[in-house]
């Protein structure tokens, strides 16, 4: 039972029990509401279950009306279209906390860009032994076609999606960097829209920093990296097409930036320039925000069977006639094994201490770490280094004996592929549980979005708070049954 505001109806929080050892975003250790959540808590406490169900339905309706869906990959190759579950209890980040995060994200992204420029040119960091060369060269995402290419402004990772959690010690930790084609930003915008539509008074009673300027900022970043000498660049969003899980986002971003959404078959390369087929004839394309993976962007350079890409585009890129965001080969820096070197990478290039914490990581490749991992499997999360979206993740504390033994065999067979980390306790946040008609705590994380262009940078204020909707679950990915919340950074 909460002892906070005695005069109001707290029935929707009645079932809310704190669990020792878990950090609650809303309540402190004495079960008191934290200051920055006071208004929200007070208002929600006044509602009955009926009221909350109504709010929930309004919110859902907002997503139907906005047409926000995503596809889940399964055994059958065509995705199933779904609505991304939205929780109307907003996550609030006090300004002071956010300022540190923002500084840390910019520092991290800058260092990652310098690292990418280095590994595709002089490789000083490898020669100095700060990052093992073998680790980079054996990465599936190290792209030798990038060797000695100079992307405009020296930027490789233009769009970064860094995942953070808040641990029980009250500190934020970076879980992983996503710098290939990070997705999810459209949900940030549609969550905000849903929030404004359903709880407008509550929203307006707070000074929340805006997120709606993201498309505008992204467009400015895209334009900033146009090839030299192009003043008014022609920019497009390149999507793999409607069967891609993030197709909604591709079309949403193209539309809100006011630039064409294209697929590979709409573009072609002639005389080392990229053109778009239009009803008025071919039109030159200068910058491509591509949401097609490296392997598929050019059948002449990479997978010959790809029909999603543009044959010859790497030649045009190499000649400096087109810019690609993100640059190919950025995956060499978001490999989960490279993640563990990010603090060293920040120090190496910037001479600064990392502002954001990394989670301690064990490399199965190293003998000492591997022994530790085998002996402590039940206390560790083990992940393949080259997968994203939560696929192939093993959580020791939740595994049966057979699963433990089976996973032991898997990692022993391919040690380079696996890293392990202590099980971080993701913070919890009150989340409306429809079936029970009340708020319960669920684990959350935070996907942030950082943009970097030629002499331009931007961090989206807040980002996407992802919720593991299954009770007790730590996996927040949308493809694995996660939902999300509107995230407020207060002024």
């Amino acid at each position: 039972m909460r002892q906070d505001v005695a005069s109001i109806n707290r029935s929707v929080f009645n079932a809310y029990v704190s669990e020792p050892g878990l950090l609650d975003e809303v309540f402190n250790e004495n079960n008191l509401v934290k200051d920055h959540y006071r208004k929200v808590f007070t208002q929600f406490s006044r509602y009955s279950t009926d009221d909350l169900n109504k709010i929930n339905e309004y919110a859902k309706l907002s997503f139907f009306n906005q047409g926000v869906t995503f596809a889940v990959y399964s055994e059958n190759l065509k995705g199933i279209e779904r609505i991304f579950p939205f929780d109307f209890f907003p996550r609030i980040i006090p300004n002071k906390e956010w300022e540190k995060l923002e500084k840390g994200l910019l520092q991290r992204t800058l260092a990652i860009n310098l690292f990418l420029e280095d590994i595709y040119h002089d490789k000083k960091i490898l020669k100095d032994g700060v990052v093992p060369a073998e680790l980079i060269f054996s990465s599936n995402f190290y792209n030798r076609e990038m060797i000695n290419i100079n992307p405009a402004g020296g930027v490789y990772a233009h769009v970064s999606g860094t995942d953070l959690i808040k641990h029980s010690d009250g500190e934020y930790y970076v879980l992983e960097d996503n710098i290939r084609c990070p997705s999810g930003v459209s949900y940030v915008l549609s969550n905000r829209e849903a929030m404004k539509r359903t709880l407008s008074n509550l929203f307006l009673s707070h000074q929340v920093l805006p997120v709606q300027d993201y498309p505008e900022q992204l467009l400015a970043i895209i334009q900033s990296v146009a090839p030299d000498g192009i003043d008014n660049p022609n920019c497009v969003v390149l999507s793999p097409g409607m069967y891609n899980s993030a197709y909604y986002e591709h079309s949403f971003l193209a539309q809100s930036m006011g630039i064409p959404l294209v697929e590979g078959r709409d573009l072609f390369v002639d005389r080392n320039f990229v053109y778009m087929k239009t009803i008025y004839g071919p039109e030159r394309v200068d910058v491509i925000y591509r949401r097609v993976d490296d392997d598929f962007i050019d059948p002449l350079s990479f997978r010959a069977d790809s029909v999603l890409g543009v044959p010859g585009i790497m030649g045009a890129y190499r000649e400096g006639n087109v810019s690609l965001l993100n640059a190919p080969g950025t995956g060499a820096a978001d490999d989960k094994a490279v993640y563990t070197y990010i603090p060293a990478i920040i120090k190496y290039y910037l001479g600064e201490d990392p502002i954001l914490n990394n989670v301690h990581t064990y490399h199965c490749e190293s003998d000492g770490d591997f022994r530790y991992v085998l002996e402590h499997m039940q206390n560790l999360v083990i992940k393949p280094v080259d997968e994203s979206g939560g696929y192939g993740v093993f959580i020791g504390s939740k595994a049966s004996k057979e699963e433990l033994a089976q996973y032991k065999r898997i990692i022993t067979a391919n040690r380079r592929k696996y890293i392990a980390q202590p099980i971080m306790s993701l913070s919890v946040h009150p989340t409306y549980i429809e079936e029970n008609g009340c708020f319960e705590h669920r684990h959350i994380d935070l996907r942030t979005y950082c943009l970097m262009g030629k002499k331009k940078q931007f961090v989206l204020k807040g980002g996407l708070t992802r919720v593991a909707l299954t009770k007790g679950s730590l996996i927040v990915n949308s493809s694995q049954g996660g939902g999300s919340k509107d995230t407020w950074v207060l002024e």
Partner: protein
Amino acid sequence: MRYTIEYQSYNVYQHPVKEAIFEFRVLPCNDETQAVTTYSLINSIGEPVFSFKNLFGFEVNRIRTVAGFKEFTFRLNAVVQKNESELFPYSVLSPEEEQTELTAKAFYIDYHLYLLQSYYTILAPENREHVLEFDRSQPLSTYLQLLNGYVHSMLSYQKDTTDVKTTANEALNIRSGVCQDFVHLFIAMARYKGIPARYVSGYLNQGKSFIGSALMHAWVEAFIPGVGWKGFDPTNNLLVDTNYIKVSHGADYADCSPIKGVLKTKGDNTTSYRVKVSSQQQQQQ
């Protein structure tokens, strides 16, 4: 020595091709041993040829077309001046110095493209025992010359046992192949011994009775510390000299394939090639 080279490819398609981009790596390169004096690239559909420099610094020629066609001819004519100097690959450093350099960390990083095994060069564990032993007290040049003869004797030259997808491992299993397979096997073994090795494609003087001179040929360049890259032809068990006209190099065949294309068409197609290499000295005879 002055060479005149003619390369021609001729493709026939069952149904008209609506849209196509072709890529050619057939033009001899310029380096310290050779210079292209004149050349022309001609194609039957009259599209302009454009080119870009690939990651190894070689010019790749491309043609794009939307004109429907069922036949496509591409022809290169080039005159190449080849230097007379014949530098045989002898070590200049002591074996000890060579080993120090080969095993240095920075060396591995600088030459990683030619040290890491690739799709074509990985040998199955049971086949790695066939890799020629390297007596590290001997000069590297001695090992490379032995390896040239070793690979030459390991495979028999046969035209239809392998294709462009065949790996060194597969060629070793059937003990036969063409120049591409000899080269991949040499590269595989050199790399297992920590010696940088790369795939070279080019033309052979047709005036001598070399194996593989009828079409484009392939050989190896291996790196000798203190000396540089030196050419070995395991198909003929010869050292590369003025009879070899280089087009390009790469980590393996995939970086050097003479012709590639992405086309919109249906049905079967056939490709035939013709290569004519003549040296001026012979023409005067």
